[in-house]
């Protein structure tokens, strides 16, 4: 077989325009809020003004009788089926489409309205009367873990919903044998994904009860499977279409309450129903990256060789799990990625607080974990009198290494990257002779491609096409 040279390739090695980019350049690309269907209703969510409260009563009668309002629902109208991304671990699924008995953060969805236009729906929200009994709330990890703290979810009286432990070797022995040990506590704050396109869903109910849902999501199949479950429908009767999405960054990886409410109200009214969130809703009540308190103890030999790490992370999870379980899992993984740790111990705990749920945002667990790792490497380098880049080179994982409980490294260019960076930035020279008012630093990062482990199951292939490689004989007639 002839091999083609680079010059003969049409796609490989060429600058190729992305598909759909012409539609985006001309404003023709359709995002969910651009969708307009005949008879479509506009919907809005009523949200809790309290961080933690019991719902005593909801009176929707005035809202229902406002002209133009076609549907008002609360949890009383809907199947009480919990949902959450980790459906192989049903105890972690702690959200309902609309609040049942309690609200757990300011912004928690309590009721939904669908009306002929957005202004009418907005007006209707002011007419829904909710009687709350305010409860004591917790706003940080310490408050949640304190003696006598308010309990957010009955299943977790200590407000700790997820725990993960990793142990590899004897960490105490490792420290005893170290020449240099340091302990630090790092605090990382919440970060909003702030994608340019606010979340939006449009649901349409077909004549036979099937649902079509257009939604601004990164994960249409997860939405399909979980939406079917929450509505008590077969997965095949729910079709989820992902239009163009204006950014997600991890913040759109779950089934969301407006997906469910849109579908439910579309069924109820027979009309398409659209939700689009405002920027205020996104920033005040939307998903964010987990704030964390990271306690990390590391040990080195005096030549800079790492001996071990003891990592304890408390995740400030907000009021519901969302993708907290994944973040808890990942921050422990990333505690020992990048470098060779002969001994490693990790204890991660996801703590509920009465704040908007933290979830997947760009790295979820990794940026926070690496912040601690990399800061410690730099501080240790300073104390040990070793160049921080060289300290990393000394300990960098290489091809063939095994990351305990995670994987074997099949190929790795980390050390090569470090050398290249050192050369092209003239790092070592700049560090030796810094200019006044200038500095140079280094931070490293790593993540996994593809799946981490199986928290979600489906009996269907998650694909439109499967490529199976096998020998085939072709008969031409």
């Amino acid at each position, binding site marked *: 077989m002839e091999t083609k040279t680079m010059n003969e390739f049409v796609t490989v090695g060429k600058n190729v325009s992305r598909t759909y980019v012409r539609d985006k*350049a*001309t404003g*023709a690309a359709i995002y969910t*809020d651009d969708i*307009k269907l005949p008879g479509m209703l506009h919907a809005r969510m009523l949200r809790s003004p309290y961080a933690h409260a019991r719902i005593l009563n909801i009176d929707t009668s005035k809202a229902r009788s406002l002209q133009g309002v076609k549907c008002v629902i609360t949890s009383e109208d809907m199947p009480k089926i919990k949902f959450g991304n980790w459906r192989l671990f049903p105890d972690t699924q702690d959200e309902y489409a609309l609040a049942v008995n309690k609200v757990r953060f300011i912004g928690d969805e309590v009721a939904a309205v669908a009306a002929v236009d957005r202004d009418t729906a907005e007006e209707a929200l002011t007419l829904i009367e909710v009687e709350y009994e305010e409860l004591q709330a917790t706003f940080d990890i310490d408050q949640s873990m304190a003696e006598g703290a308010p309990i957010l979810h009955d299943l977790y009286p200590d407000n700790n919903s997820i725990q993960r432990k990793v142990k590899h070797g004897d960490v105490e022995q490792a420290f005893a044998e170290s020449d240099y040990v340091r302990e630090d506590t790092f605090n990382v704050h919440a970060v909003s994904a702030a994608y*340019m396109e606010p979340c939006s869903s449009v649901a349409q109910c077909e004549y036979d009860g099937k649902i079509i849902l257009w939604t601004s999501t990164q994960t249409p199949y997860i939405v399909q499977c979980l939406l079917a479950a929450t509505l008590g429908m077969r997965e095949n009767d729910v079709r989820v279409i992902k239009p163009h999405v204006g*950014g997600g960054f991890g913040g759109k990886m779950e089934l969301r309450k407006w997906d469910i409410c849109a579908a439910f109200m579309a069924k109820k009214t027979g009309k398409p129903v659209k939700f689009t969130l405002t920027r205020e809703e996104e920033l005040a009540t939307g998903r964010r990256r987990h704030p964390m308190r990271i306690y990390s103890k590391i040990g080195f030999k005096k030549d800079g060789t790492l001996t071990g790490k003891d990592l304890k992370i408390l995740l400030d999870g907000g009021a519901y799990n969302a993708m907290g379980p994944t973040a808890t899992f990942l921050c422990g993984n990333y505690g020992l990625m990048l470098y060779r740790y002969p001994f490693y111990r990790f204890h991660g705990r996801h703590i509920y607080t009465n704040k908007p749920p933290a979830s997947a945002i760009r790295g979820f667990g990794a940026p926070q974990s690496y912040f601690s790792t990399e800061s410690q490497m730099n501080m240790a380098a300073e104390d040990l009198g070793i160049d921080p880049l060289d300290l990393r080179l000394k300990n960098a994982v290489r091809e063939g290494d095994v990351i305990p409980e995670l994987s074997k490294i099949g190929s790795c260019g980390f050390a090569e990257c470090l050398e290249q960076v050192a050369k092209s930035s003239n790092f070592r020279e700049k560090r030796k002779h810094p200019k006044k008012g200038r500095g140079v630093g280094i931070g490293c990062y790593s993540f996994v491609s593809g799946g981490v482990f199986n928290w979600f199951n489906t009996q269907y292939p998650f694909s439109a096409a499967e490529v199976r490689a096998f020998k085939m004989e072709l008969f031409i007639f």
Partner: protein
Amino acid sequence: MKHIITMTVNGDPCSIAVDPWRTLNEVLREDLGLTGTKLGCGEGDCGACTVLVEGRSVSSCLTLAVAVDGKDITTIEGLALSGEELHPIQEAFIEKGAIQCGFCTSGMELSALNLLTKNPSPDEKEIRTAISGNLCRCTGYYNIVDAIGAAAEKMKKTNDNN
């Protein structure tokens, strides 16, 4: 009571009855079906809603529709439709990889047009100032700045040829 407003939108006359409190953004997107103009924040902070009124870039989310009665409006759809020959700014955005999720793109292109109409040879600082009212969460702005510089070159060539 609704007001009847008459505007020229992308060169076409348009007459429509609107409630006085409705924004230009709502009227464009919901009544006129021109969904190329986006809504990102509703407060004039993000620029996704940028359109041109009498050739000047404005935030359509902060403009009352009734206040543009009798005026000339240009939305992204007024640059070129996707089946047509593209405007140099659109070509440049595509060539320079300045479009990822695309949500900021309409606003960015119109802000670019606003700039290049007034200043055909902007330097990098002027380009960055021109798009300072348009947020992008995907690209990091470098490719957008490059695209606008490239568009300026293209437009100068076109003008030279004319």
